[in-house]
């Protein structure tokens, strides 16, 4: 008894309730991960075989100009101090100037990011709408022809180079059939017609009630989004299937059947309810995956998003832009992970 009291006392002295320490721990580990991410990009920036000073002042600048910029960039300081400056700047959303167009990288990213977001969101939407039911049906009818079809669809999805699939899509649906708009977000004569509010052209044209632009923008986005959607479909349907198989063999499913419930209700009201939480994680992961997949897709479809931005910057040795873009994509990745963790805690009664 005395021991128990002691233990209680010790816990009280540590004072904070459990959820507070847990939250602090989570925040701490997120902070460390983000810092590490910034550190890696910083290191990559250091080992790049590009002289950042020369890149700014140009080949023919005098030695004094060179030295001035050298000092201005803080390159005389120890590496750790330079890193501290870098972190400070990143925290303020300052990724430096783009060497290509002499504008702040952060402004560029703010401009291109919505385009990627729009593309990836529509893609993951297609992936969920088709992938989840496909996975559920494949699990319920395990071994049937539809399960085999789902398996092949996923395997093909895992094996296709996305940039090639994009090219083939353009060739067939744009070049040969003419069903969709070509590369770019809208046709040239519709550009800059609707005011940019969110930066997502579907949303902007909807807000502006400009149906012509909306229709045109949709005809441009539907192909790249479907292709990205196919990738997340492959992943989402496979994961849904294996989650469902696990739940369908659980004993509470028998309970539901004993109650006299229809197979539809057993599957959707009972089994599916139990995989929702896991599905959220999978969807968050595939959303993150689509941000990545959009790098190559954007190039094929001349989509002015973050993927095109990073690659263009890369090819023209615009270091600040590359690193800025990488940090932003990395941060979005981490945020998506945190978000899925949070949703997990909200939706699973056992996690409380």
């Amino acid at each position, binding site marked *: 008894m005395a021991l128990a009291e002691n233990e209680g006392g010790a816990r009280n002295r540590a004072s904070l309730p459990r959820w507070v320490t847990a939250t602090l721990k989570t925040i701490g580990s997120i902070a460390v991960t983000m810092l590490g991410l910034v550190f*890696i990009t910083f290191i990559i920036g250091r080992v790049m075989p590009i002289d950042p000073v020369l890149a700014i002042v140009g080949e023919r600048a005098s030695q004094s100009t060179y030295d001035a910029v050298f000092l201005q960039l803080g390159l005389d300081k120890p590496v750790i101090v330079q890193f501290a400056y870098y972190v400070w700047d990143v925290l303020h959303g300052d990724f430096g100037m783009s060497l290509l167009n002499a504008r702040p990288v952060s402004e560029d990213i703010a401009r291109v990011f919505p385009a990627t977001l729009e593309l990836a969101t529509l893609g993951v939407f297609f992936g969920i709408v088709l992938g989840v039911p496909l996975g559920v049906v494949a699990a319920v009818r395990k071994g049937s022809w539809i399960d085999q079809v789902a398996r092949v669809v996923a395997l093909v999805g895992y094996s296709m180079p996305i940039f*090639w699939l994009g090219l083939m899509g*353009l*060739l067939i649906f744009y*070049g040969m059939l003419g069903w969709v708009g070509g590369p770019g977000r809208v046709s040239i004569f519709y550009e800059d017609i609707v005011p940019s509010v969110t930066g997502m052209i579907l949303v902007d044209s909807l807000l502006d009630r400009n149906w012509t632009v909306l229709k045109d923008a949709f005809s441009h986005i539907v192909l790249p989004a479907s292709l990205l959607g196919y990738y997340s479909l492959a992943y989402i349907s496979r994961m849904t299937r294996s989650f469902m198989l696990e739940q369908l063999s659980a004993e509470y499913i028998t309970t539901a059947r004993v109650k006299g419930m229809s197979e539809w209700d057993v599957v959707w009201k009972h089994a599916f309810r139990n995989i929702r939480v896991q599905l959220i994680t999978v969807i968050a992961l595939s959303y993150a995956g689509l941000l990545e997949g959009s790098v190559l897709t954007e190039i094929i479809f001349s989509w002015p998003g973050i993927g095109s931005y990073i690659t263009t910057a890369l090819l023209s040795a615009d270091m600040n832009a590359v690193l800025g873009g990488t940090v932003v994509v*990395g941060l979005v990745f981490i945020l998506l992970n945190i978000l899925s963790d949070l949703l997990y805690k909200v939706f699973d009664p056992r996690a409380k």
Partner: protein
Amino acid sequence: MADQTLRQWLLTDTPTSRRHAKLSAIYQGWLSFRGNTMAMIGLWILLALVGIAAFAPILSPHDPFVQDLGNRLAPLGTESHILGTDSLGRDILSRLIYGSRITLYIVALVALIAPVVGLLVGTVSGYVGGWVDVVLMRITDIFLAFPRLVLALAFVAALGAGIENAVLAISLTAWPPYARIARAETLTIRAADYISAIQLQGAGAMRIITRHIWPLCISSLIVRVTLDMAGIILAAAGLGFLGLGAQPPSPEWGAMISEGRRFILDHWWVATMPGLAIFTVSLAFNLLGDGLRDVLDPKGGE
């Protein structure tokens, strides 16, 4: 023994030695693998690929680098150019055949580097524990937090374009999952009684890790590597497509798609054929990996 066929010997219920039991287990695994048609298709495709790469000079009808500007962008089925020619008049079939060597080269190198790094990090982390574990796993998490292709892009940007750097960049982004697996395996093995027994005999950490932990981690790593091969091929092709991998005039498949991209609407085969090659090979790896997982880990394969 004498009147027994090898097959019977391998299928016995009562193995006579440890090696006998092991061989028997492998043979039975092979039998169940052989029953998986899709996995066998994958295996045959890959064997064919290795054969094509080995005999590339004999198999290819033309020199993959010789240009013939008079005969550029010849369509499919042109005489002596079955798959047509590219924008410089080079034979696409020959380039594909030689390209298989590059693909195999990249896959082999990444498959060597990434799991070894992962194995090292994972076993040390799992065996030593304490703050070493915390630090190493935190680093692993940071690498996992990056989107792989974007990180590889940044690495290549830092290291410079080229096939070796592409291999290095892909390996650098591919090791963290292996480290996770190796660490998990190490933690289970470390708790086993026989490890305590060896420790009591005075074996050092080095000896335990290299002699007792590594051999047991390897089988789970092999399955994972096979499943990852397709991803490695796609990543390498992606880097090649962006002009960051193999440099022209190298007949790397991703770079070939990139070259053909400009003519996609009028001369579709130039970009289509290398894509089909990439697709076939990575599909083969996926089929093989699926089959292997079913054999080695029946639970994971449902």
